[in-house]
């Protein structure tokens, strides 16, 4: 296992993602003899070693699955030391910074390393990430994780405050990413670090005042093509839904027919979309049966979406992108 290369067999020392359900996943480092207590009982690491990623592993009270780590799975399972960036923002950042293998990227601050893993993935195997974190413990933790995830040769972690001390790098980066309380202090240093042939910059800020000041500084420093945006993900649950039909009284035509039998079919045939969907699985057969039984309350069955949560993320931060063209 490496975050940069798939390997089918699980080995000792691997970071894996334990999957109980889509809402319940957590990372684990596999070690001989180790056990894990969780919802489905006791999980023995020895039962996982040499299995294939994606396998079902039995525990005392059920089973779990072991998944190969990816930057996305890491983002939703990593231990938070700070507020992190999620895949929606991360994806836009990687796209807007024009990242691909071979690029050199600077990141400040490292935080919990969520974005870092995605940056490394985009620029591997020939690029490099220089990531800066002013909190010593966090910078050490990030370094440990990069080693454990076998991506250490792609990244250098610096314990440094780039706002006061700069990056200490000149004319070498294709892209710079800033997630700082005062990004305007780091922007001139970023300009110095970017290649003289040009590069891209991104600043992520939750507050509009930060954005205004950053944009103003970017322009003063000679950056072009400024663009500020925000992106939000809307997730949906998919389910088979049944809604009842209202009693619209009897129509003349119906009076002559035996409505009892035909109720469900007739009504649904006359309905324009949504049509009644035939489903193979048990759950839906049950529902269809129930609906026939309750012929006093005919209904329409269809597959549809609804918002996954009633309250979803309304704001993470504003993303500002700009280009530095060659002087």
């Amino acid at each position, binding site marked *: 296992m490496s975050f940069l290369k798939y390997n089918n067999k699980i080995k000792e020392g691997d970071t894996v993602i334990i999957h109980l359900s889509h809402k319940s996943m957590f990372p684990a480092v596999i070690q001989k003899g180790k056990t894990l207590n969780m919802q489905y009982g006791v999980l023995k690491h020895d039962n996982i070693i040499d299995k294939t990623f994606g396998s079902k592993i039995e525990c005392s009270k059920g089973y779990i699955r072991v998944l190969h780590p990816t930057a996305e799975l890491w983002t939703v399972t990593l231990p938070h030391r700070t507020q992190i960036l999620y895949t929606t923002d991360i994806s*836009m950042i990687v796209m807007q910074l024009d990242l691909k*293998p071979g690029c050199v990227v600077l990141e400040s601050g490292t935080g919990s390393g969520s974005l870092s893993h995605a940056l490394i993935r985009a620029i591997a195997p020939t690029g490099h990430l220089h990531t800066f974190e002013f909190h010593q413990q966090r910078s050490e933790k990030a370094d440990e994780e990069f080693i454990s995830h076998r991506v250490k040769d792609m990244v250098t972690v610096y314990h440094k405050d780039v706002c006061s001390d700069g990056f200490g790098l000149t004319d070498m980066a294709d892209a710079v990413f800033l997630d700082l309380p005062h990004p305007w202090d780091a922007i001139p240093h970023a300009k110095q670090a970017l290649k003289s042939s040009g590069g891209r910059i991104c600043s992520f800020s939750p507050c509009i005042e930060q954005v205004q000041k950053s944009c103003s500084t970017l322009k003063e420093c000679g950056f072009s093509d400024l663009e500020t945006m925000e992106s939000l993900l809307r997730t949906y649950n998919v389910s088979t839904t049944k809604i009842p039909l209202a009693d619209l009284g009897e129509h003349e035509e119906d009076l002559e027919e035996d409505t009892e039998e035909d109720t469900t079919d007739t009504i649904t045939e006359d309905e324009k979309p949504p049509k009644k969907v035939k489903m193979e699985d048990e759950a839906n057969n049950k529902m269809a049966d129930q609906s026939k039984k309750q012929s006093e309350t005919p209904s329409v069955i269809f597959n549809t979406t609804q918002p996954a949560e009633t309250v979803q993320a309304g704001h993470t931060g504003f993303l500002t992108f700009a280009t530095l063209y060659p002087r």
Partner: protein
Amino acid sequence: MDLNTISEGNQVFFKKGDFLKAVQIRKNRTLYMDKKKFSLAGVLGHPYGTKFQVTEGRLVKMENWLKVTEAATTSDMITTDNRDLLDKDSNQKMTRDDIMDLKEKGASADNIIEQLVENSVTFKTKTEFSQEKYIKKKKKKHLAEYRIVRPTTRLICQMYFDTKPKSICCMRMDTLSQILSYANVMSGINVMLVETCQGLLLGAIIDRLAGSGQVVQFYSGQAPPRQALEYYSFAKDYMSNVFAVPLSLVSIIDKVKDEPDELPTGNRNETPKFDQATTNKDEAKLDLQESSDSAVSKSSLRQTQREKEKHQAIQLVKAKQMDTLIVACKYDPTPIVTSLLRYVAPSRPIVIYCQYQQPLVECYMQLRYQNLGVVNLKLSETWTRNYQVLPDRTHPVVSMSAASGFLLTGTTVIQ
């Protein structure tokens, strides 16, 4: 050849604000853009990112390019408002003929704008914000200034989405960026792809693979969509890892024998190009016969090469170790996904994009309830809004892109 320098034959973008035009640089070529005609020769040898101005039929590098510094205008300084302003054509004393006259005489855009401002009855009574906006608008119209930039996925996608979104199934950039993330596209992996986005998604994937890893592009119809690849100008070694297989062959993949390829290698003149005009009927059937005589015409060699690649791709897929399945096409995704899913290794991501939500709802139900070995199914769409950021004038941009398409993502597992 320095990759940072604009050279003969390069595919570039002419950029002016949000306007992007793809152009291939040929020193003897003249271009007609924004009602002006000019030769391209002037850009050669300059670094990418240089700004040029059209002057007397040529492109000339802009010297002493002045930054447009937004004035330190704040609302405290505004002493006027628009209560007395009437919107009349007669507010501008210069006629269209006057302007054309000036242009013909070779007046610079700055000159023209100066004249427009002087001849505007209402200009002096406008607020300073309004004056800035007026000048910016006139500049956009009369200035023939372009920056030459290198195409990147971001710019290519923007161009397609702004000018012909339907040709890429209305896939907006934010959604495209998520497809690459969720599918864990990285150098070294093997990708199965079905797309009808002119090859934009294919190009984005090849760009991120950077020559390491393989892409098997399944397609329906005469040829796999690859129009967008011309903007990327990929090197030959990148393209040698990209294969095309008709979807109509999917049902026989498992029946193909496990044998090493025995077709003659022959001279590989060029990577066979697919474009929509190609009507090679042999694409429709798999020919596993050895080509008996390799000393034949070029087109026959190309055909043999394609057959060889198709065979190679099928052997690769057959091993059921593909690292991801990405579907983004105009066809109903469910049958495509259910027939290709078995070739994806366990614990790998699958990503299905659709312009419409309903087909993904049906696909979700199939994957969830038919025990096809997919967990973490998630159906989503993305909401993105741009902002205008100016002192005292920061607000979301007035128009917003309405549709981004929908994504269904999941992870394969062993049943």
